[in-house]
């Protein structure tokens, strides 16, 4: 028993290292000059030189775009979480043809390739004067609610209907039932939904580039792509920038991950 566990632990560590190796490449190269980067891609940097980070921070206007990204991500997540949870709860609790159809439509939409709706979407967004940050958040809601509703729906199934009824008898309206009872119980799946959507929205390039491509509203990925020029990719800066970009998400993930394990569970399985 003991040796077997040890062996498994060893295998786990090895696989873990393999999974980490790309991150190794990102991080060591973020410390190298461009020349060093091409001379020895795999080796450790000659010195722990933060110049790339400083330059990337500067060129990205990191503080500013970080705030933009943060605002967009948080805003979109709030919209997605609230409206998806609301919809999923109602869809699960209402057993009519209509609710079945709507749910199906949400799921089916996960199969639509974005490229197929890109131009008509942009055209409409322009007509509706939504080529701005609120518009972008709204777009994320439109695209993000499918998976989110799917996950919430599965989780709601596991919440006894009696809780809703108890709340009704205690005197709650539907609205109160949702906010006082259901939404707090959805916390684990809300965290999952937030993590998955954060990972997506935080890193998204295409939608912001189409909807809010103005210097003052740039997000981190939009700026990061300025390191990728017509011919040359400023790898040393891009990797430093990338490191700066993913650190906040990793921190967020670390804080939230205790819950995600329980949650995708409940969301997707039951």
């Amino acid at each position, binding site marked *: 028993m003991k040796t077997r566990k040890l062996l498994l632990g060893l295998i786990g560590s090895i696989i873990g290292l393999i999974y980490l190796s790309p991150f190794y490449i990102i991080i060591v190269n973020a410390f190298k000059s*461009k*020349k060093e980067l*091409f*001379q020895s891609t795999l080796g450790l940097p000659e010195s722990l030189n933060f110049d790339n980070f400083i330059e990337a921070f500067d060129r990205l206007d990191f503080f500013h775009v970080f705030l933009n990204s943060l605002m967009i991500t948080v805003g979109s997540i709030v919209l997605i979480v609230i409206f998806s949870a609301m919809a999923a709860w109602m869809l699960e609790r209402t057993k009519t043809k209509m609710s079945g159809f709507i749910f199906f439509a949400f799921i089916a939409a996960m199969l639509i390739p974005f490229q197929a709706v*890109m*131009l008509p979407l*942009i*055209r409409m*967004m*322009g*007509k509706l004067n939504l*080529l701005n940050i609120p518009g972008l958040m709204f777009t994320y809601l439109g695209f993000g609610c499918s998976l989110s509703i799917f996950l919430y729906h599965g989780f709601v199934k596991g919440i006894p209907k009696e809780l809703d009824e108890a709340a009704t008898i205690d005197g709650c309206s539907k609205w109160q039932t949702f906010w006082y009872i259901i939404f707090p119980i959805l916390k684990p799946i809300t965290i999952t939904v937030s993590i998955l959507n954060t990972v997506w929205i935080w890193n998204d*390039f295409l939608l912001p*580039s*189409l*909807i809010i*491509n*103005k*210097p003052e509203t740039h997000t981190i990925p*939009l*700026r*990061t*792509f*300025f*390191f*990728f*020029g*017509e*011919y*040359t*990719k*400023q*790898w040393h800066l891009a990797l430093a920038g990338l490191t700066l970009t993913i650190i906040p998400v990793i921190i967020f993930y670390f804080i939230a991950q205790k819950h995600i394990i329980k949650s995708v569970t409940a969301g997707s399985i039951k």
Partner: protein
Amino acid sequence: GSSQDSVGDKVNVDIFQFKVEAKDALEQAANMYMEKNPNVKINIQTVGGGDDYGAALKSKFASGEEPAIFNIGGPQDMIDWSEKLEDLSTESWVSQAYDGTLDPVTKDEKIYGMPFNQEGYGFIYNKELFEKAGIDPESIKTFGDLENAVKLLDSKKEELGLKSVFAFPSKETWVTGLHLSNVAFSNEFGNVTNAFNSKELKFKYADSLKKLVDLQADYAYMPDGKKASLNSVDYSTQVEELFSLGQVAIIQQGNWAYGSVVDIDEDLAANIAMLPIPLEGVKEDSIPVGVPMYWSINNTKDEEVKKASKDFLNWLYTSDEGKDLIINKFKFIPALKGYDTDNLQPQDTLAKEIIRYSNEGKTMPWVFMGYPSAWGQENLGADIQQYLAGNMTWDQLVEDAKATWAKARK
């Protein structure tokens, strides 16, 4: 629309441009211009990440937030965007354009684009290595000369510390399908317009082109020792890694590569120059020089916006301040005349080479903007990859090229 074009009493000029490398300089220019013209507000949007300008521009227009100034690439763009293009033929800079540079954007006497800059490409070589190998670059004029030099270099690989003579990035179909093929086709068609109007491709100089391909491929650095693996060599490997680290002696690239080299090794960048790309038996001692992109003005905008846009471009390319920016900040090779004074000469070694070739008249035009849409990269470039991988003979490639060209022009 008009209301959103002006904020307060300012005229709003939106620029939507593709060249990431020019982003900072353009912003600087805009700021300078706005200082002088407080009634104008210039907003610059740059598309990052490389080659997606076409899609971005389309969605920009689809969104209704049409820019006042944007870029087009050649005859096909001119036709596609014809609804939106302002005639610039009455502008003052037109008279200063070099011969032929306006052809791709001229239709029915109307001129729809202002040249961005000039670019040229050839065989960039490492002077120091040539010296060490005892080769006089001046003497290389013909394909034969080149071939001999290459063979000599190849034989001295070890002592020169070379991995190989060439680095050939066939992964980048624009290098093969556009630039390299241009050497043959510019001689077949003569100019863009002919190419653009031609219903068929004769591929007259197929053999000579094959030699250029073969020479580069045979003596190129192959990652796994097989020719097919050239298809994984990209620009970065070619220029930044192999060439800039002194591991290969010659690469087929343009003056833009200077920036890449200088980032890695400034000394090396100061010590490079350009050999011609000789099309054997046709035109040997010259390099292709052309205009990669044009500025265009959106004709649906208000008159004042259009005027401000024209003024800005005029100022940028013809005023003294503007010229200084173009040369020293943009690091462009100007496509207009009038940059003669000493302080307006490009400093980088490659740009100097292009100008030298231009001045000596040893150039051939760029015609690949006249290829059918995406044909050069998606068809010819892809076929060259097939050829290198051994999945296609050169004859098959030629036949396929003719067929796909004809089909596209049907």
